[in-house]
């Protein structure tokens, strides 16, 4: 199950805005109508099979050919075309975020089937019906070429191995155990981190390995593909008529050599694909709608472990932010011209550009251009800290400016040097004034820290995404995750209020 979506943030239609009563009624009505009509006859009368996929998937699945951003090619594009033709209709591609393809299919989205490297697994079968397979893939280990010793996945026990978030490779490594699993959001950046040595291996699906190893002599495939899996067409549950038609059509495409022709064109045909012709459905398929709340004993510890990452990334980032922010505020307010301009420039640049961009720059940019290979954790703390330092600097400056002028004059009149006056008289008062804004930012950072998941750091939100994709239970797991976030920021604000009250008390 290759998630081939680069850095797309998950949309949650359930939570997006409050629909009016009218549109709720309309939706109910539509779903009643839909439940009665048979999807196959709908497709037939429309003359079009609408298939959902994510065009960001990349080669060899679905991609824009070089120099032509309007056209889509790839073995799945051609398979969809052939499949529709075999059914006697035209095909129509519908773009959808990969993460949300199956949920959208279930909720009656604007496509009839999903053709997007969906693996025929019990997890997916719980969310949708699935056709017979149209493609056989397997797991491929990729390592650096200069490392001749590693030949199989067991050679990398205890070493950092990159996988795609919630993919079959990810699940396989978790099942095997004993690996330092690094979770990525897309199929590009783990190869980059492998090249620069941040990780020692990548476990991925054969098509992805095949495309990325072509013409790259720094990386090599280690050992033979293993753990075969099947891509199948996903159909809304209960649409048996459509499902039967699809099965027959796919069987036909396998038998008459159409699949072989398409896959050969994309370098994907191998002896293992012969299995498509003889494939028989497993006798017993466990269909179980999983519930995060009912299985809280499994999921709560996972989420809590990820929450620990959130906590230390946030605390580390905040410690950096408050100290650097203080220095910036003082320099901006009191230092001579050239230094002051630098502080102003820093603050404006870090406040004026997106945090996400800064994270990419620090993690990937510095490694590529300067060879500065920060660990994901260090990069996350650095990015959050550098970014928030700009905000904290302004908080402190506001605090400094609101200390009455007479305080500085009284301190100077007592013979204090400016530096002593600042440290002993102005800052103690300014920090008290800015404390509420600083604690607000601390709580905000708990939530903002979820953005660091783009650099292979599994914090709370990322863990939630992984488990929600596995189980399809966005609601239950979402509630648990929200509960943990709430507990964290509640604790933080309680602590902050306590400090505020303490300082306020002896300030009065």
């Amino acid at each position, binding site marked *: 199950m290759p998630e081939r979506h680069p850095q797309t943030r998950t949309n949650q239609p359930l939570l997006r805005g409050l629909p009016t009563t009218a549109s709720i009624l309309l939706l109910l009505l539509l779903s009643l109508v839909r439940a009665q009509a048979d999807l196959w006859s709908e497709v037939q009368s429309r003359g079009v099979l609408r298939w959902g996929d994510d065009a960001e998937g990349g080669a060899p699945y679905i991609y824009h050919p070089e120099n032509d951003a309007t056209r889509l090619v790839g073995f799945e594009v051609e398979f969809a075309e052939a499949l529709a033709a075999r059914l006697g209709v035209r095909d129509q591609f519908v773009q959808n975020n990969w993460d949300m393809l199956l949920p959208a299919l279930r909720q009656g989205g604007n496509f009839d089937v999903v053709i997007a490297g969906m693996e025929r697994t019990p997890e997916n079968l719980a969310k949708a019906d699935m056709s017979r397979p149209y493609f056989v893939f397997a797991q491929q280990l990729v390592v650096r070429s200069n490392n001749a010793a590693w030949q199989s996945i067991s050679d990398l026990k205890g070493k950092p191995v990159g996988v795609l978030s919630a993919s079959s490779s990810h699940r396989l490594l978790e099942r095997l155990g004993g690996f330092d699993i690094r979770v990525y959001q897309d199929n590009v950046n783990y190869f980059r981190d492998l090249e620069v040595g941040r990780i020692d291996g990548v476990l991925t699906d054969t098509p992805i390995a095949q495309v990325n190893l072509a013409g790259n002599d720094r990386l090599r495939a280690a050992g033979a593909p293993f753990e075969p899996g099947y891509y199948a067409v996903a159909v809304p549950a209960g649409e048996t008529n459509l499902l039967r038609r699809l099965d027959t059509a796919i069987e036909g495409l396998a038998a008459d050599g159409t699949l072989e022709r398409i896959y050969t064109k994309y370098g994907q045909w191998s002896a293992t694909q012969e299995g498509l012709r003889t494939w028989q459905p497993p006798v017993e398929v466990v269909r179980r709608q999983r519930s995060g709340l009912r299985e809280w004993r499994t999921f709560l510890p996972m989420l809590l472990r990820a929450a620990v990452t959130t906590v230390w990334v946030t605390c580390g980032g905040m410690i950096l932010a408050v100290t650097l922010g203080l220095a910036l505020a003082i320099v901006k307010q009191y230092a001579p011209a050239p230094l002051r301009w630098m502080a102003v420039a820093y603050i404006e640049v870090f406040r004026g550009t997106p945090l996400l961009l800064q994270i990419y720059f620090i993690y990937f940019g510095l490694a590529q251009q300067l060879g500065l290979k920060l660990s994901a954790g260090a990069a996350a703390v650095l990015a959050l800290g550098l970014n928030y330092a700009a905000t904290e600097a302004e908080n402190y400056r506001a605090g400094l400016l609101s200390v009455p002028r*007479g305080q500085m*004059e009284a301190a*100077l*009149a*007592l*013979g204090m040097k*400016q530096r*002593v006056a600042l440290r002993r008289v102005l800052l103690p*008062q300014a920090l008290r004034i800015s404390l509420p804004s600083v604690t607000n930012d601390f709580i905000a950072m708990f939530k903002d820290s979820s953005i660091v998941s783009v650099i292979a750091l599994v914090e709370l939100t990322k863990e939630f995404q992984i488990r929600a994709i596995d189980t399809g239970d966005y609601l239950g797991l979402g509630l648990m995750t929200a509960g943990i976030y709430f507990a964290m920021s509640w604790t933080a604000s309680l602590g902050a209020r306590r400090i505020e009250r303490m300082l306020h008390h002896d*300030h009065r």
Partner: protein
Amino acid sequence: MITVEKLTKSFGSHRVLDAVDHRQERSESVVILGPSGCGKSTFLRCLNQLEVPDSGRITISDVTVDCARPVPREVQRQLRLRAGMVFQQFHLFPHLTALENILEAPVHVQGRPRAEVLDEARALLAQVGLSDRAGHRPSQLSGGQQQRVAIARALAMRPAVLLLDEPTSALDPELREEVRDVLRRLADDGLTMLLVTHDLQLARDVSDRIRFFHGGQVVEEGRPEAVLDNPQHPRTREFMGKTGGG
């Protein structure tokens, strides 16, 4: 103890001090009177360099600065160490207790051991009648009490002279007497004081000499009885009439 020669200061085109001279002996207590806006505060603030004068020479104790040239920060600081300052609005440090306000500069400017300064600070608090308020924060003290702590804070640095800018003006009339009382005793003890005030009672009680400012210059000066009860210059007369001190 204090010598000022031709001190001049303008704000923009407005000349606030016009070649003012001032001479003051050790243990002498001088009061400056004058209408509002005539530059009294500016004069005091120039003396300890909270304002930068345009020209003139200032000598306090053993430190002399020539204001026509830029004054190095360290020289400014040396001047300030010899001239304690008491402000109309007290400007106590709100995050410190009364006692800590007094300890702050001796410990963190002069670097004297806290234990040694502590006895002295308590004695100063006793001197201004606030022994029982040592642990109070400024916000827990009345205006008169705050001003007395501010005087103790300035004295803790053992300045050669004490500059006071309207020390009783921010206080309710019934609280003024307690501050006057402290200042009377300091004058009796021989402290060199330069005091700006509109409080004629205070001027009469503590001054050895009164100087009357007008238009950026000293237009009259003399013994307190002479200036207060028998002013010569028309401006002084007008001022005494208005303030009701005649």
